[in-house]
């Protein structure tokens, strides 16, 4: 049924999307090929020479291989906090969706508050310090979990409400204990929303700029977003390296994207929309 109109509108859409969505990325790539002088012009031009490798080496080795540390740190923070988020949020969503308790209203209020209230930074720093968590990866992970829990819970709760309760009951009759019901029966069924959670939260946490800036000082604690500072100072900016850096830190989200591309829509159908 692919008629002429759909081909024409398709071609129009492809051309339009190329200009709007592809060119900015092409620009990043082109910039990362340039040398410093040419890059400082910041125009959309063909690179004078192939400097990508030099730029990459410069970006990665700057400040005592800070980029490597940053990648390790960011990956650790992302993986651990997303794992925690998934398990904890699913547990809360499960109990919240299933159990009619009088404090459900309070919990829902707190979740909504968490979505809305901007975190109070300085008091949090003081608190982290008191807990000896300030400037540690553990502290950063817990902060990310705390800040992102509400959104994950909302996604999960909406989805769990669509899973028939008879499944839990069948499992109970089969002899499942609460942890069995949750981990063996419910959690595997949440996969579509879990994908949504993985994509949205891991990208959000990996790309988080503000929170590591406050809660994770110290160059040994650098995260990838902070590496952008290496090439953008108050006094001068190395645009070739800056854009090479942007290119480099876009790779992990790209990988996540390639992995889950097909499942993202399914996850959304399952989770967000039914709410």
């Amino acid at each position: 049924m692919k008629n002429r109109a759909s081909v024409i509108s398709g071609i129009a859409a492809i051309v339009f999307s190329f200009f709007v969505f592809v060119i900015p990325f092409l620009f990043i790539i082109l910039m990362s090929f340039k040398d410093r002088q040419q890059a400082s012009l910041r125009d959309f031009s063909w690179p004078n020479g192939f400097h990508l490798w030099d730029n990459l080496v410069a970006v990665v080795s700057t400040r005592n291989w800070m980029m490597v540390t940053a990648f390790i740190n960011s990956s650790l923070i992302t993986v651990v906090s997303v794992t925690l988020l998934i398990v904890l949020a699913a547990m809360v969503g499960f109990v919240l969706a299933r159990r009619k308790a009088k404090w459900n209203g309070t919990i829902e209020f707190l979740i909504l508050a968490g979505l809305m209230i901007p975190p109070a930074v300085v008091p949090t720093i003081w608190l982290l310090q008191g807990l000896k968590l300030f400037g540690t990866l553990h502290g950063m992970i817990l902060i990310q979990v705390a800040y992102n829990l509400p959104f994950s819970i909302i996604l999960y709760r909406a989805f769990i409400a669509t899973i028939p309760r008879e499944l839990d009951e069948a499992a109970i009759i089969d002899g499942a204990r609460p942890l069995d019901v949750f981990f063996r029966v419910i959690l595997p069924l949440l996969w579509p929303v879990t994908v949504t959670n993985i994509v949205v939260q891991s990208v959000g946490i990996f790309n988080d700029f503000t929170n590591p800036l406050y809660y994770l000082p110290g160059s040994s604690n650098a995260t990838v977003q902070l590496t952008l500072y290496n090439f953008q100072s108050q006094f001068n900016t190395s645009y070739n390296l800056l854009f090479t850096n942007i290119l480099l830190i876009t790779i992990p989200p790209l990988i996540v994207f390639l992995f889950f591309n097909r499942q993202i829509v399914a996850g959304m159908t399952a989770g967000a929309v039914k709410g």
Partner: protein
Amino acid sequence: MAGLELRQLRKSYGNVEVIKGVDLNIEHGEFVVFVGPSGCGKSTLLRMIAGLEDISGGELRIGGKVMNHVEPRDRSIAMVFQSYALYPHMTVYENVGFGLKLAKTPKDVRDQKIREAARILQMEHLLDRKPGQLSGGQRQRVAIGRAIVRQPEVFLFDEPLSNLDAALRVDTRMEIAKLHQNLGASMIYVTHDQVEAMVLADKIVVLDGGVVQQVGSPIELYQRPANLFVAGFIGSPKMNLLPVTVEAVSDGKVTISSKDLAATDIAANSSGISAGETVTLGVRPHALQISSSATLVGRVALVERLGNETNVNVELPTGGQLMAVLDGDQPLQIGHGIALGFDSSDAVIFDGEGQARHL
């Protein structure tokens, strides 16, 4: 062995009492059906036995032991749900074996039990499939298989046939009956379909409004309904119920009449009934016959010719309706007069409280 005893079992949600003190004995190996209209509390009662609902009051014993606070997995029960509740992410094999796995049954024993259950249910070829790839009937089998492998003392069925089409429902009903014979375990079966109840049950429990209306064998319920509710609920088409006036009372006999009905003697427990009182006369449609010594005269309003029998809807002169099921094919014309009679021993008198006055 494992009989069930329910003693004054109660369930309330806040101030609302949904099960109002149920007493019931179920012998080992008995097939008991809970029947009643939706909202009567039959499913709640089943789930209380399963351990899925708290027991607010009273006592539940299985095999003589009090089970009120025992976890479902320790009650020696298995349950088949209305929606089958198969785990969508597991294969049939895993679904059936899940309970055994949780009970840490050794793998070879587990395998043997799963295959045995599959053999009984003739679903060996389905073991590697996921529930999503099965038809409704196949899912039903898997759900039953999952119950069988647990080798429970009591099987609980919660409206297990309501998601199947009519033909499959009859087949599966028979299979469940066969299964009961083969396994010899107690089965408690919830349905709102009185035909299913009549066909399957050794004992039917009729529930309404959280109260047991009557317990008995299917025939008992059919022939000697305890009250108007049971009379109306059991039997298809429904029993005809006519308001009548008591003309005279003697021991073991009540004489009644109405504008549609000449004075008739009915055998009944007459104590407490006095002349002039209004009572209800119950006559099964099958008990009505075309008769020359007619006691009821009306006009044919509707005819359903089924071949072996004919259902006739009769409009009485006072505006009342009667349903009669006549043997064989009866060539009746709509609008023509019809005269019906019944054997007074087939009729039941219900007093002002709706209680049957059987002798």
